[in-house]
């Protein structure tokens, strides 16, 4: 199908000649398949050049649509950087942007008296996996849902006005994001816009990429009932094994969480050193420690939770990760931690 898309999907779907009509049909197919996989309407789906751009369009477009009602954006303190950047951009242009705190599991603390023009909340946290109480917040203000970490793996929660997702997060190609805007919601393009068939799209759609993203999403959703529980069980094993290592903090909700990832921190351990040691043994893992970040800032998610930020590791499972690979990781981890602590003199 991808070969067919590359062969027939090169033309501008807005034009009227034959190749363009083919591209238009392929794009509409991608839109319909994506909508079906997510349980939304096809006319609620827009393909964007990235998940980040979809987040910016979603957050700022809801604010633009509600401009007469106010200009106060509220987000949880553990949102992805793309939401935080949209909020700072909004504030720099005369709006206001505040964040609400999370509990030690990373779950946003309910705000019964919340006053917001728009509230931005993730479906589940991208670093620690904790699922957020989206429905409760959707009752209080038009809600932008960041579904980038969860789309495909978990069903979309109810109540959102606009949402964003990112194809590479579910195994699709990079360079394809999704903006979802509920039918009837007040959304206005916050940017200069364009004259596409889809009024929310800017520039010529990447038709082959959109088709590949849709196919990958369908596959992930189709096998979610089989892969999800298997990943959950593997993560449970990692959580319980890692928590037996002295002075280790496993963070995030142990149950109500994304199926495939876990984050933990080892006291007195250098995050960069442990990532390097694991990489040398063939394990590719991420870290939220400051020394591993381009900004040299620790993860704002871990800091907002009051969790330890140094010595941090994030393990994400792929659909193919096996029991044996997890066994291999758990076999080497205690020794690496002990060696690094000994080197540090503790």
């Amino acid at each position, binding site marked *: 199908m991808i070969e067919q898309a590359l062969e027939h999907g090169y033309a501008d779907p807005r034009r009227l000649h034959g190749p363009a009509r083919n591209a238009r049909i392929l794009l509409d197919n991608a839109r319909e398949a994506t909508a079906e996989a997510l349980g939304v309407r096809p006319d609620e789906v827009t393909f964007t050049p990235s998940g980040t751009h979809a987040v910016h369009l979603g957050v700022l477009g809801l604010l633009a649509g509600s401009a007469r009602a106010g200009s106060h954006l509220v987000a949880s303190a553990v949102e992805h950087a793309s939401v935080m950047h949209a909020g700072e951009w909004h504030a720099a242009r005369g709006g206001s942007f505040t964040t609400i705190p999370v509990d030690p599991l990373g779950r946003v603390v309910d705000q019964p008296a919340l006053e917001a023009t728009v509230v931005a909340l993730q479906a589940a946290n991208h670093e620690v996996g904790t699922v957020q109480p989206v429905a409760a917040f959707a009752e209080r203000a038009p809600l932008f849902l960041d579904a980038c970490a969860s789309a495909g793996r978990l069903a979309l929660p109810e109540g959102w006005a606009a949402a964003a997702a990112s194809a590479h997060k579910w195994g699709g190609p990079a360079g394809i994001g999704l903006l979802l805007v509920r039918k009837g919601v007040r959304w206005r393009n916050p940017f200069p816009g364009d004259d596409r068939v889809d009024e929310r799209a800017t520039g010529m759609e990447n038709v082959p990429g959109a088709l590949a993203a849709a196919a990958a999403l369908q596959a992930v959703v189709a096998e979610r009932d089989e892969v999800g529980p298997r990943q959950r069980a593997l993560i449970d094993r990692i959580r319980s094994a890692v928590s037996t290592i002295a002075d280790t903090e496993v963070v995030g909700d142990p149950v109500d969480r994304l199926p495939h990832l876990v984050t933990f921190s080892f006291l007195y351990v*250098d995050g960069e050193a442990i990532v390097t040691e694991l990489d040398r043994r063939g394990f590719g893992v991420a870290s939220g420690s400051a020394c591993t970040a381009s900004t040299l800032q620790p993860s704002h998610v871990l800091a907002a939770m009051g969790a*330890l930020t140094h010595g941090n590791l994030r393990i994400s499972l792929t659909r193919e990760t096996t029991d044996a690979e997890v066994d291999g990781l758990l076999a080497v981890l205690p020794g690496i931690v002990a060696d690094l602590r000994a080197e540090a*003199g503790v």
Partner: protein
Amino acid sequence: MDATVELDCRDMLCPRPIIELARHLADVEVGQVIAVVAGDVAARADVPAWCRMRSQEYLGEDTADDGVPRYLVRRLS
């Protein structure tokens, strides 16, 4: 606030200031205050997190004479 011991971790990166704090906790008596002067921003999250994990009391943050953040800990055990 006065600290009995003040650790100069100005030029250290995470997790070094926390390692120094752990090594020098016994330099103060139970009930006394030990301070960590650290420019590394991770210390702002990690000194309170260490106190929680190690059952010590985090008292808060002020600044050293040269403006570098100073984190205060009361030894409880």
